[in-house]
């Protein structure tokens, strides 16, 4: 054992090798190649927000095409050049827009932006660790993500345009560079970017799991961890199990594209010429993709669930309802999410018996999802609700999760899915349950932990404006899509004018586009609020939301090593809000039971007989005193 001194300016002598002390951080080591988890979290957040803005602009572009398929907008040609000749977005570029929008939103914003930000920020702070297991790997994780983002965006600058086979990049379309412009260089860049992305995710995920399992502070046993940590932990586990499978699928795809194998290719005729590929199976790719793809959607939503649970408990001033059930349902979702991938493939000619099996597993996953939903509602019930912007977004997350989750049950029926597959019904389903719900969870987290990240508060009024416009906008955009889907309107079509049966939906399309533009403009309120508050927001106090978790015991000023002195010890679970008999309506995790005799319950001492005896003695003296009176 060696003893390391920590000065009160708090730079703990705590680095990889234990013998190189650098006090003077340079600009590069502090802001760019930082190994501090808080800074890395901020890097992920800002990159994620940037990517989100880009992906949102892409969606507005294709919404314009959908709303006004006959009109020309010369401005588009000025902006996009040969991608939009004669003032209209070209058919190929329309598909590219949809593809890259989906890819960026699912992977770059809601996976890296969400998990990357909050896992990095919260894991060490909430479990009481000075940093991640391997800060170096953590830094690499960010820079791989950054590189992946750059490569993905660079595909807009190649002549043939970005990948355009949809975010699921099904072969054979994606496997044949000559099949369409978007399957050429753009697709190659997409694949390179995804390999970098997966490397980044794995490095991050490995660190998160290892840190949570190995580096918790004294007293922080698993059942005292906040739900954010549980969610981020299980999310990382999902990623570790699922992403390598995507890599396997992508490796085979790369061989098909560039080395002449035929894993996914068979009986292909291209421009009238029979291709030499034989015996491949495009369905194989779908298996590999969705074995990742379904867990991926839970990788997206689980951090949002954890964040919302935490925020709703804090702002209802009530313990989270059913803490254990919340954890077990997260575990249930984690396990089940690996055996439902077939529901994306009901109409691929799958054996109907197998379809039935996947249908049952899919419907079972609705059970833990429902458990969580009821627990959130029960947490709100009769709470002393504080409607902070973070709280509103957390409630919004629950709302979207319910309305989008219900349609999942329709889609999960193999028979109903024959009609609904690849229609706007699916688009409505996943934009509500995944897109909107996860974004709301992420925004809730940003509003809630902004003071922890930047030492300042965001403006509440702008927060409310942002919430209501986005909340209403998202429903206006996605709700009508259910009806389009029920009417059989397929997704990813360029112009509804070409099909008599779809023409009646043109007016709805125009309506949706204007709702989308409104919701997009609402994000300006957020961006303005975010940027201005970083520099000029009101200074925060140490624990602005009167919350119990450990991150609020660290000083507002960021220190390398987080706590100036010893890391605090944890004595209780994180949800002692409004405990009867307590002096205040919250008791931080660092307060020992011996200091809160009046509010202790027998239940607090389940495996601590000495403590229970102490409590009983305390109670009997109280009773005795009362009798004397």
């Amino acid at each position, binding site marked *: *054992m*060696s*003893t*390391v*001194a*920590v*000065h*009160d300016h708090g730079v*703990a002598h*705590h680095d*990889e090798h*234990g013998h190189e002390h650098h006090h003077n951080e340079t600009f590069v080591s502090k802001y760019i190649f930082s190994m501090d988890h808080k800074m890395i979290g901020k890097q992920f957040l800002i990159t994620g927000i940037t990517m989100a803005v880009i992906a949102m602009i892409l969606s507005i572009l294709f919404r314009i095409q959908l709303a006004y398929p006959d009109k020309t907008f010369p401005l588009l040609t000025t902006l996009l050049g040969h991608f939009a000749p004669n003032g209209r977005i070209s058919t190929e570029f329309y598909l590219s827009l949809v593809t890259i929008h989906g890819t960026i939103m699912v992977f770059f914003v809601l996976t890296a932006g969400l998990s990357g930000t909050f896992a990095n920020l919260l894991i060490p702070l909430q479990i009481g660790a000075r940093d991640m*297991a*391997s800060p170096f*790997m953590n830094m690499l994780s960010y820079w791989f993500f950054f590189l992946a983002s750059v490569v993905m965006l660079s595909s807009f600058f190649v002549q043939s345009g970005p990948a355009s086979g949809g975010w699921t990049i099904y072969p054979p379309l994606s496997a044949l560079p000559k099949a369409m412009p978007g399957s050429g260089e753009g697709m190659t860049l997409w694949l390179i970017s995804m390999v970098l992305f997966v490397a980044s995710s*794995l490095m991050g*995920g*490995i*660190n998160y*799991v*290892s*840190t949570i*399992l*190995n*580096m918790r502070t004294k007293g922080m046993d698993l059942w005292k961890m906040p739900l954010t940590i549980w969610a981020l932990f299980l999310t990382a586990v999902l990623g*570790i*199990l*699922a*992403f*390598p*499978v995507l*890599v*396997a*699928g992508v*490796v*085979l795809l790369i*061989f098909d594209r560039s*080395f*002449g*194998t*035929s*894993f996914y290719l068979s009986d292909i005729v291209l421009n009238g010429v029979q291709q*030499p*590929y*034989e*015996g*491949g*199976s495009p*369905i*194989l790719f779908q*298996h*590999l993709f969705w*074995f990742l793809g379904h867990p991926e959607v839970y990788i997206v939503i689980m951090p949002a669930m954890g964040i919302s649970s935490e925020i709703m408990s804090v702002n209802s001033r009530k313990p989270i309802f059913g803490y254990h059930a919340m954890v077990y349902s997260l575990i249930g979702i984690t396990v089940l999410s690996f055996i439902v991938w077939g529901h994306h493939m009901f109409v691929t000619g799958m054996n109907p018996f197998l379809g039935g099996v996947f249908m049952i597993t899919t419907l079972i996953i609705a059970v833990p999802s429902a458990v969580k939903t009821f627990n959130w509602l029960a947490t709100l019930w009769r709470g002393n609700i504080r409607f902070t912007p973070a709280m509103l977004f957390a409630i919004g997350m629950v709302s979207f999760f319910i309305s989008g989750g219900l349609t999942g049950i329709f889609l999960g029926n193999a028979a109903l899915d024959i009609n609904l597959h690849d229609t706007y019904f699916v688009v409505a389903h996943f934009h509500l349950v995944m897109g909107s719900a996860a974004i709301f969870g992420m925004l809730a987290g940003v509003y809630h932990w902004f003071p922890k990240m930047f030492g300042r508060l965001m403006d509440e009024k702008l927060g409310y404006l942002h919430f209501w416009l986005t909340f209403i906008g998202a429903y206006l955009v996605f709700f009508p899509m259910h009806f389009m889907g029920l009417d059989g309107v397929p997704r990813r079509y360029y112009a509804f004018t070409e099909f008599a049966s779809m023409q009646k939906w043109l007016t709805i399309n125009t309506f949706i586009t204007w709702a989308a533009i409104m919701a997009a403009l609402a994000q300006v309120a957020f961006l303005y609020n975010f940027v201005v508050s970083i520099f000029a927001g009101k200074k925060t106090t140490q624990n602005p939301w009167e919350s119990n978790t450990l991150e609020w015991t660290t000083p507002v000023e960021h220190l390398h090593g987080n706590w*100036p*002195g*010893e*890391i605090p010890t944890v004595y209780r679970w994180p949800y002692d809000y409004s405990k009867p008999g307590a002096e205040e309506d919250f008791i931080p995790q660092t307060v020992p039971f011996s200091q809160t005799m009046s509010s202790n319950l027998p239940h607090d001492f389940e495996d601590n007989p000495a403590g229970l005896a102490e409590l009983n003695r305390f109670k009997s003296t109280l009773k005795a005193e009362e009798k004397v009176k």
Partner: protein
Amino acid sequence: MMASIQKNPDRLDFEPKKFNMWIFIFTSFMFFAALTSGFIVYSGGKGHGLNVIMPSAFMYSTAVIILSSGTLFLAQRAVKRSQIGAQQLYLWLTFALGVAFFVIQVYAWSVLTYKMNVYLTDPNASRSFLYIFTGSHLLHIIAAILLLLSTLWGTYRKVPQARNLYKMQMTSIFWHFLGIIWIYLYVFLLLNQN
């Protein structure tokens, strides 16, 4: 104010990192599991068997990789007894066996391609899988050899014993794992050869 925290660098810094290695191994295992499942889905669904009798080179490479695990084990025992010389000797041996494994695998490819007419671009993709399995495994082997060399390099630079032991442990976990993966792949291929 001067507060003190107790800190044991070995435990605090190395344990979680070793754990990282274990998790990494898990991801790598998932990757190979995905490839072999892909093989099963492919050959089962399409009725394309492998129909290749495995070249005997694979038997030799299996022997070599098992042997290399043995020498690495001896190297690690030497570290625990603080015998740097023996450690270096066994590490060099392991390195040589690793390279030999690599060479034999590549030789097996040439046998497959030139003598047995089994190609990477075979219309029967079961046969392409053969190359993908061995190729991805070889990529891992390259990484493992680099890790081994870095440990070896550390012993010449006389890094502290604790760090030396830690690097040895990291190398061993990875190396033994790759041996197991190879045996898994080989048995898998043997079971599916027709």
